[in-house]
Structure formats: structure tokens, C-alpha cells
């Protein structure tokens, strides 16, 4: 989204002095536009030009960090509106709300325990948001102490009372929590607090206009580690505001909105809470704060996040290896496919609907599909035979029969030679597996 080479060229001295290592100023400008050179290499560039180019070259959304050490969470630094154009960089930080009036020991124990494993990936709650629901500064500080002692998670401190914030921040400053929030009345003091402790600061407006004004005032105070909240809480309005913030930052380079964003759910019912969180996670929130701390609610949310933030230019992969479907045992049939996630899931779905416990051997094809991998010499008699060996399949089942996709029927002979197994040619499409299994294995 930066300037074009020609736009940059206009700002350069046009001396063609070659000091920068490029033959002409134009060539240097092109290299700058592609991010391959740094303006510092030019000896004659004016201060004005530097400033103009620096602001134009800055990323549309600043990267802001919360947390310290190896628990740092990066937010922002996004360049896209649609994931099909290019990958979204930083997955939404899923944050569970707790109040300083809750039984914190119990709640933090539950939240600490919220870790999930699904398809070889591990997820856990990224942050807790500690809310000063009591309205009491002493209580908020005591709660911060409890948080400090009982969890290592990152923290959002939620209070618009500067005295309460100061106390809690003193306790947790080393964690680099997100200070939530500066509003139109407290922003000078909140900015000072966040700045002195070098913590990110959330800016809360009453709508987009007041948010932009407030951001400008805080930037004028010399602080830019900001996270945006338009103040809206109704689902439809939040969707609109998050969309405008992202669009204006990316498309118009509107500086006041060039920061990560935070969204809070507003429902008391945990299921409804989850629905709202799903909307905000889909559409651009860098942080979603929700209330439910149930595994059965958070697992689908984490799964959606894992899907949404994948790189659309890379085929999604599953773990290569042997996958048991149902209570597979030594007599179960063995199907063979690739580790391209769509191929695998199609086969997995069909095999599990046969209700016959089975194994699926997923050969590492670098995430390519059956035919692509075959054409690319990744799905071959050799690679399949090697996978049979490396997964210990010969010890898992007492037969020696493997089903290969009908699309690569041609591999039958060579695989039999290579592996010593009997090879059955399966259906061409996964949708044929039910019928096939019924005839062969039922």
C-alpha cells in the first residue's frame, strides 16, 4: 500500500550520484517502493522529503505489542481487507473477562486450564481482562495482585478511573498489560501512566469521530502504542466501526485509525456472547474480550481463528502419518491419501461415515492434492511405501492390504513391488468410499 516508485522519485534529489548503490535516482526509487532499499542510503535527501516519505512508507496499521518476554502478543500490522488477497498477519487475541468482584482464585484456575488440542495444534486463552467492577481502587489493586500470583497470562486492565489504574498498573507493569482505557476526560493522566510504564494504551471513543479526535490528542502528547475502541457495543454497529477502522487505515492511510482494535461482547448469555465474538473475530478485531470460559464455547472460536488466519496462498496441511478412525484395530482396512487438508478431510468424513473402524495413511505431499502430488512426484510408490514403513503400519494391522485413490490406479503395480503389500484401487472420488467399503469390508 506504499507509494509508487514514481511518487518516491519526485521527492529524491535527482542527482544520479550513485552513492546509494543504484545507477540512477529512479532505480533507487523503484527499489524503495519494493522495500528493497532504505532511504538512509541517499546522501542528499532533504528533511522534508524524508518526512513525507517516512509517513507514506509507514505500514498502514502500526504493530503494537502487549505482554513481555516470550509471552508478547503482536497486534496490528495488517495490510488487507480480504484474506483472499493476502494473509491476515496477526490472529485475534482471545481474551476472557474476569471482574475484581469474582472469586478470582477459582476463575483463574479455570482459565489457566483452558488449553485445547485439535488437529495437532495447541490453543490457549491469550489474555484475561480484569475489570474494575467494584469501582474500588483498593479492590482493583488487590485483584491485580491475585492475577500476578495466580496466572502468567497477559492482562488487559479495565478501568477508566485513573487512581484505580495507577494502583493496578504498579502491580502488573512488568507484564506490560494493555491499559484500558483513555477516554475524553481522563486521557492526559492515562497517557502519562501508560507512557511511564511503557504499556500499550487503549483509546475509547464515543463514536468514530470522537475516537479519531482522542487519538490525535494522545499522539500529540507523544504516545503511539495505541489500541482502538469506538465505544460501540451493538453487534451491527461494532461490525460497521471495525470495518471503517480497517478500511480507512488500509485504503486511505488515515493515521488516527492506523492501530489495532479491540471489541467487547455485550451479552450475558454465554452462547450469545460466543456469536458476537465470532462476528468480531471474522471482521478485523485484534482483540476480542468475551465472557464465556467454557471449553465447549472456546474450542469452536479458536478453530475459526485458526482457519481464518491461515495463509490463503499456501495449501493447508494436516499432520502426515497414520490416523485411526473409530476404534481401529489389527483387522481394520487401510486407506491412503495425501496430507492436503481438503483431500484428507473428505476421505476422513467418508471413511467415518462407513462406520467401519479404519486407518487413513496420510502421506506427506507438502499439502498438495492427490493428482498434483502425483504429477509432482511426491505421491509415488516410493513415498507411499516409505510412509507404510515409517508409521509402523506393519505392526498395527495383521493384513497387508492398502486402498489407494482411484485417480492414481496406475500406481498399483509399482507400489505392490515397492512395498510388498496388496494394493486395492479405491474409488476416484471420496464420495464413492461408502459404497466401496460396503462391498469390500462390511
Amino acid at each position: 500500500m506504499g507509494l509508487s516508485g514514481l511518487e518516491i522519485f519526485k521527492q529524491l534529489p535527482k542527482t544520479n550520484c550513485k552513492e546509494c548503490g543504484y545507477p540512477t535516482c529512479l532505480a533507487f526509487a523503484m527499489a524503495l517502493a519494493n522495500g528493497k532499499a532504505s532511504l538512509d542510503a541517499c546522501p542528499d535527501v532533504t528533511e522534508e522529503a524524508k518526512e513525507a516519505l517516512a509517513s507514506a512508507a509507514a505500514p498502514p496499521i502500526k504493530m503494537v505489542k502487549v505482554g513481555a518476554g516470550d509471552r508478547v502478543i503482536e497486534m496490528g500490522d495488517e495490510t488487507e481487507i480480504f484474506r483472499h488477497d493476502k494473509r491476515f498477519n496477526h490472529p485475534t487475541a482471545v481474551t476472557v473477562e474476569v471482574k475484581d468482584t469474582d472469586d478470582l482464585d477459582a476463575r483463574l484456575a479455570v482459565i489457566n486450564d483452558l488449553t485445547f488440542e485439535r488437529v495437532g495444534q495447541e490453543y490457549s486463552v491469550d489474555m484475561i481482562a480484569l475489570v474494575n467492577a467494584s469501582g474500588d481502587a483498593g479492590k482493583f489493586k488487590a485483584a491485580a495482585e491475585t492475577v500476578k500470583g495466580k496466572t502468567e497470562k497477559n492482562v488487559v486492565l479495565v478501568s477508566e478511573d485513573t487512581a484505580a489504574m495507577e494502583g493496578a498498573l504498579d502491580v502488573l507493569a512488568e507484564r506490560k498489560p494493555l491499559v484500558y482505557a483513555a477516554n475524553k476526560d481522563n486521557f492526559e493522566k492515562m497517557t502519562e501512566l501508560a507512557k511511564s510504564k511503557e504499556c500499550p494504551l487503549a483509546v475509547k471513543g464515543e463514536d468514530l469521530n470522537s475516537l479519531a479526535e482522542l487519538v490525535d490528542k494522545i499522539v500529540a502528547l507523544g504516545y503511539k502504542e495505541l489500541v482502538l475502541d469506538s465505544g460501540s457495543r451493538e453487534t451491527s454497529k461494532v461490525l460497521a466501526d471495525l470495518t471503517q477502522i480497517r478500511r480507512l487505515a488500509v485504503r486511505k492511510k488515515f493515521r488516527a485509525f492506523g492501530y489495532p482494535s479491540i471489541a467487547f461482547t455485550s451479552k450475558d448469555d454465554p452462547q450469545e456472547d460466543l456469536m458476537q465474538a465470532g462476528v468480531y473475530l471474522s471482521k478485523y478485531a485484534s482483540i476480542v474480550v468475551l465472557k464465556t470460559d467454557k471449553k465447549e464455547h472456546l474450542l469452536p472460536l479458536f478453530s475459526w481463528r485458526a482457519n481464518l488466519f491461515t495463509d490463503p496462498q499456501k495449501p493447508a496441511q494436516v499432520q502426515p502419518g497414520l490416523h485411526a478412525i473409530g476404534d481401529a484395530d489389527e483387522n481394520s482396512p487401510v486407506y491412503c491419501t495425501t496430507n492436503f487438508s481438503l483431500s484428507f478431510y473428505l476421505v476422513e468424513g467418508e471413511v467415518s461415515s462407513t462406520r467401519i473402524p479404519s486407518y487413513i495413511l496420510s502421506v506427506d505431499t507438502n499439502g498438495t492434492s492427490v493428482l498434483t502430488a502425483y504429477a509432482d512426484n511426491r505421491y509415488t510408490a516410493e513415498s507411499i511405501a516409505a510412509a507404510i514403513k515409517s508409521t509402523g503400519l506393519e505392526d498395527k494391522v495383521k493384513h497387508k492390504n492398502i486402498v489407494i485413490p482411484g485417480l492414481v490406479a496406475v500406481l498399483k503395480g509399482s507400489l505392490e513391488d515397492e512395498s510388498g503389500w496388496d494394493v486395492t484401487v479405491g474409488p476416484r472420488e471420496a464420495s464413492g468410499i461408502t459404497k466401496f467399503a460396503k462391498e469390500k469390508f462390511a
Partner: protein
Amino acid sequence: MAVEILKEKYRSQVREVVLGATKDEGGTRSATIKVGGESTLPFLHFEGEVPNPPVVAMEVWDIFPEEWPQNLKDAFGDALNDPAAWAKKCVEEFGADLIALRFKGADPDVKDASAEDCIAVLKTVLEAVGVPLIVYGCGKLEKDNAIIGPIGEAAEGENLLLGVAEQENYKSVASAAMAYKHSVIAQSPIDINIAKQLNILISEMSTPLLDRIVIDPTIAALGYGIEYSYSIMERARFGALNGDRMLGMPMIGNVGHEVWSKKETFIPVDEEPGWGDQAERSLAWEAVTAIALLQAGMNILVMRHPQAVKLVKQNIDELMQDNSY
């Protein structure tokens, strides 16, 4: 400083498709349903029109759904033994906007129900409820081709939404729609070019059918490649708004069908302690899948669990609130 709200101006809009037909229109539905017609991306009321909210169809089978997990069956009780009672429950108790009748029993490997059997079920369901109907075959091409014509004929004028036409097999469904005044689901395998090509093929058979096509872009469940469907849908909708007439149809997604075969919906908590309660998890899985697809432009969601339906319908209501600046 006032923020200058960024409003996109699109060249076109999604076609509006009417489902069902009332008595005056040659059918027996108590009301019709309109889908599509939007001139912006999902729920961005601040820059365009979203004249018709997305709708939820609930699935009803011609046979008892043995394979459903127990908690899903429990949500319906005895009604699952009788398609008419089942459909009535969906509409009256659970607020289904439409019924999606699936002729699972027609599968030669299941019950091999004949076209006549299917028609008998269709008639009882048409009688039991006043909402428009979506009709799916059993998923086996040969059998579906054999039954779709008679089914279409038996319900002539009802403007059913008939599923599914595919690139290699669209003529029987499109002919039934053309001859007996129904609409068509055009299904493509997560591929925007095939979606377009199929619409062209169908419109070549009959131009007026262009206003009676609903695209099924093929959706995957949460955790099983949903991001592919999501991006294909976003691209298709973007194309539609930018004037691509052959992509400008409303979209339908078979959410329940995809979700309820996945292990996240049926593995009990004692087998996967980290995944939480199965009953709650399974319906959350269906609801979150639907929520995500709504954000990519889904117009008709075909779903199963009543509580998931309720949550999604509420989310739609909230998202339909005006958010103009």
C-alpha cells in the same frame, strides 16, 4: 475533525430470488420468501441496501435420522418419525424460515424409496407447513435424476428450491425447474469459475431461470476447510457487486449436513476432556460455522439443531439493525 466514512460504490447488486408461491401465484404456500438483493457486502447498511435478511432452513428427512448424535435427536423427540410433524415442529416451535426436505430414504443403499414414496412425503410436508420448501435428493446422481422430474411435476407451481444441479449433471434439475416453475440450487466444488460456468449452462437452457438460481458454493465445516469456502464466497460476492451477472445470485450453504458428521459434534467429553461438553460443543460448532459464513455473504443456511438455529437467527436480527453513520 470529522472522520470521512469510506463508502464503497458498487456497480451492481445481488439478484433477488423468490422462493415458494402463494395461492395467487400458483402454489399453496402461506407466504413467499425473498433472498438476495443486497447492494453491499454483508450487513454494511451504511453504504448499501440489504433488503432481505439471510434466512434459516431446517432439515427434515423422509426417514428417521439414525446417524444423528443423540443430543440432536433429543431436540426433536418423536417428531423425527414423521416428516410432517417434524417439519411442523421446525416451523412452529423453532422458527424455521423454510424447510429443507432431504430424501435420504431414496438412496438405493438405504431404503431405495421410489419417486412415488418421495412425492407422498412431500405432499404431507406441504400440507403440514406453509413455508417455502427446499428439496434435496439422496446424493446419488442416477437415483436423484430419476426422482427429481416426478417430484417437480407433483409439486408444479410451488416454486420449490430444487437441489442440486452440478456442472456434469444439471439438466434433469434445471428441466424440472423450467417445466414445473421451481428454482434451482447450482452447486460448484469450491470453485468460482465452475460456479459461473454452471450458471451460464443453466441460463442457456432457459434465460428466465437466471432469476431462479441459488448458488451453493460448497461449504466446509468449521475446522475442515471452511476458510476455502469463506474466501470463495467473498470473491463471488465481490464479483457480483462489481457487475458479474453470472455470479450475482444469492448463496446457500448446507451447514448442518457438513457439521454433524464431524467428530467435534459427537465425540463425548470423556474421550476428549479438553473439548468440553459434547451437547453444548456440537451446537456451538454448527452455530459458529453459520456465523462465519454469514460474514462471507451466505443468504440461506440449511441447519439442524434448534438452539443453533435460534442463536443464528438472533445474530441475523442484530446484524440487520441499521448501522448508517
